[in-house]
């Protein structure tokens, strides 16, 4: 350790002693306000702890609310869609989807001729019998 270090050490010791002395001389008004501030902070940590313990409950409650809102939105959207596009009766859908009749009309016209003949024959038999 050189002389400069020793000097710095002496300087530090003296500065530290002076600063320490200044701490002991803080007046009563300041001490009182510091005490009040400390009590407020201590009360805050108690309040903070309560908030921490309520955290899971708040999380669960908010989750339930979010789920309820989601269900309500889905139901509402479903009803709105029904109103905008009223559902067709099932028979109509089947009729529209059925292509068998058209196939018969286009490709098998003789069937209708035969069927018409059968109907006339039945009528003739009925009137003659």
């Amino acid at each position, binding site marked *: 350790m050189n002389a400069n270090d020793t*000097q*710095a050490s002496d*300087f*530090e010791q*003296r*500065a*530290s002693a*002076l*600063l*320490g*002395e*200044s*701490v002991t001389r*803080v*007046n009563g*008004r*300041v*001490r009182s*306000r*510091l005490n009040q*501030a*400390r*009590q*407020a*902070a*201590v009360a*805050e*940590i*108690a309040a*903070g*702890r*309560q908030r*921490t*313990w309520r*955290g*899971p409950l708040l*999380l669960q409650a908010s989750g339930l609310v979010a789920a309820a809102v989601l269900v309500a939105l889905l139901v509402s959207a479903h009803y709105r869609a029904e109103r905008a596009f009223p559902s067709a009766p099932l028979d109509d859908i089947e009729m529209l989807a059925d292509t068998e009749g058209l196939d018969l009309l286009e490709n098998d016209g003789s069937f209708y001729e035969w069927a018409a003949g059968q109907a006339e024959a039945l009528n003739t038999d009925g009137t003659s019998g």
Partner: protein
Amino acid sequence: MSAFATLAPVYSMPAVTPGDVDLPQSTPHDRARALNRFLASVELKAFRIAKIALRQDDDALDVVQDAMLQLARAYGERPEAEWKPLFYRILENRIRDLQRRRQVRNRVMAWLPLRRNAEGEEPPDPVEQAASADPQPSTRLELEEAMSVLEKAIGELPQRQRQAFLLRTLEGLDVAETAAAMGCSEGSVKTHYFRALQTLRAQLGDLWE
């Protein structure tokens, strides 16, 4: 010894409630008492540090109070060993914020000389100005004068040098703790502290001979 032997204590730990994983095992009452004890141990030094930087009692009290509340709110659940550097870091941030607000206010007030004269600075507190009832021996006067000169010189240091010097000399933090409080490396702390010492010694050396 198998690897499972080292895991055994983990299985014997108490079950942790979901959402409370960060809570220490102490009760709220214990934490409150610990915080009270900690703040009582640092509040006077914190006030002196703030007072040296801000030079006004009320401003110093405000920043110390803010730092206390912020520590309790944000870091009250942290281990007690972390409180001191955290507290002094918060305190320094508050001091810096107030100094910046003062600079802005002073710039604005410089454009409003009439308003400044009308409102003026707050009058000095008569209680503060009143002489103490205690006897004032010459040695005490000399001590107070030496304190005043030292604090004035420290207050004129650059912010980081002042912070390093006060945390080490007044609060007694070591280099690592000071680095944590200042949010910098230990090497930076040493540099700031050394420069602060040089400046103060140059200013006060003759007076202290």
